[in-house]
């Protein structure tokens, strides 16, 4: 699964995306645990970041599986 970072999260992680290959589908918490393990600097953003799965906002109970495109979206500011 590919995890995309946007806006200030690119600065926090130093990259635009990272590929994860979890052995089984991840919950929100599981995904965050895997990401914080790699990028501790994301911790301060966690409360404000929304997750998207395959270009749609992910429901709290959503599972993230191999092959999904996941995006970490900090608060938006378009318009």
């Amino acid at each position: 699964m590919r995890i995309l970072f946007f806006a200030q999260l690119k600065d926090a992680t130093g990259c635009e995306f990272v590929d994860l290959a979890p052995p089984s589908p991840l919950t929100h918490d599981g995904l965050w645990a895997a990401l914080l393990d790699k990028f501790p600097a994301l911790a301060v953003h966690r409360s404000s970041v929304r997750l998207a799965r395959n270009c749609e906002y992910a429901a709290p109970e959503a599972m993230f599986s191999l092959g999904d495109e996941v995006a970490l979206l900090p608060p938006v500011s378009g318009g």
Partner: protein
Amino acid sequence: MKIEVQLTRCPIAEQISPLSPDDGHGALVEFRGIVRPEENGKAIAALEYEAYDEMAVREMRRLLQSLAASRPCLTARVIHRVGVVPAGDTAVYVGITSFHRAEAIALLGEFLDRLKQDVPIWKRRAQPAADAPNLKNDPLAPKPRPGPPSLDEAMAEIRARCQSLPALRVPLAEAFGRVLRETVCAPEDLPPFDRSARDGYAVLSGDPAKVFQVVDTLHAADWKPRLLASGEAVRVATGTALPCGHLRVVMQENVERSGDRIRVLKEERATNVRLRGEDVKAGQPLVHEGVRLNAGALALLATAGCSQPLASPRPRVAHFTTGDELVPPHHAPGPGQIRDSNSSLIRGLLQGFPCDLQQTHLSEDFESAWRQLNPNQLGQMDLILVSGGASVGDKDFTRPLLERLSFQIVFAQVNVRPGKPLIFGINGARVAFGLPGNPLSHFVCFHFAVALALARLAGETLPAFLRAPLADKLDDEPCPRETLWPARLEWSKGAPFLRPLAWASSGDLTCLAAANALIHLSPNQGSLAPDTVVDFLPALGILSS
């Protein structure tokens, strides 16, 4: 409601073509969000916007659709600019039409509120006013170059700028040739149960008996679990689900049957059993994201129960031919005229990429040609191809045409032979090419540029150059440009060889019927001896022609 949503890296035009002029609307409400010259009390020269393009477009579309349920309007158009936007420029344009003003005004207000809450677009950083000269820091803005890009540079630009179109779920019957946009894993073990690989008799795998009692007969679709005892056999057919584990199947050719008894005449080493999960275990990837779906991949998806794969859409392609000298193939050309071959060439080449194609011949006069176009309809196109008019002659209007359609020209030449005057433009997620009019240039530009863009639009994992030896001498004068030389990949004694084809000029059509590959020659390469191993780009149909 008709919805048009676009992200663009180009300035949003002052005048925007009318929204559905004939839909009978009584109100048109337009809004422009302008970048202010100050941010947090400091003077700024520009703001940089970033977007999660694919999701932003989807989310805007979804918002408009859901708002339209309570605010019935006729059309909505949203254009959001991304990249570096100078102060004073439009960052977002919204236009809405409706029968009466109230719905359009309400929809506009609600949409803008939701845009600022839910659409993944960000103001990244402001450029202070003192930095105004650095305004062109947009990383994707065209970079000044000393000369035309090399083949590699041109392909890198196309790769970087063409974005994949939003995927959709399609029935398997409509999925052939589309690109799979999700990795599909096996939902269960394949085969899902131990099954017989032969017509014969299932017995315990370690049973030393020579004579067995046939206790049951199972057919292909039967599911009758039972434990076998020593000396018992079950009649099975190829593909039958075996009644329990630890069995082997004795082929019927190797037994003698009388009544309910069989006698084994010949012992076999093979168990003749296909074990559950021996092809694939549950959860293993079967078909990977980015693969163009062929018959075998579709069969595999069907086996996995993936009846609505997430796949690339059919891009909408507009192809325009230009040139007053062209007549249709069924006409006899008059003096100075030739038959149009490029329409057939492009139509044929696009068969490799499922798409919805519209072909139109344009007048050679710019203003007349402009009047022939329907900008609204063109706004729906994912890819615009213009044949001819790519050079810089008086009547070569492809570039001005694309510019008037708000395309940003990334390059207007590539340092390659043939096909140098290739134009590549981009407008948000939309892509345009001006193809040099000569058919051989068309063929070459299609394969290194248009096919690449189509692969990117579809989200295909891209093939690279391949390598093979030359069958014959390649006879060439050294040329300062890189060359893509038409060739035919052939099999000789079971191994592939490339036969270079003779071509007199970029107008030479005669080699196209045989060409299925393009050999890459470095600048100033000159002739090459037989058996030299060369890089080549496979052309469409390389394995079928």
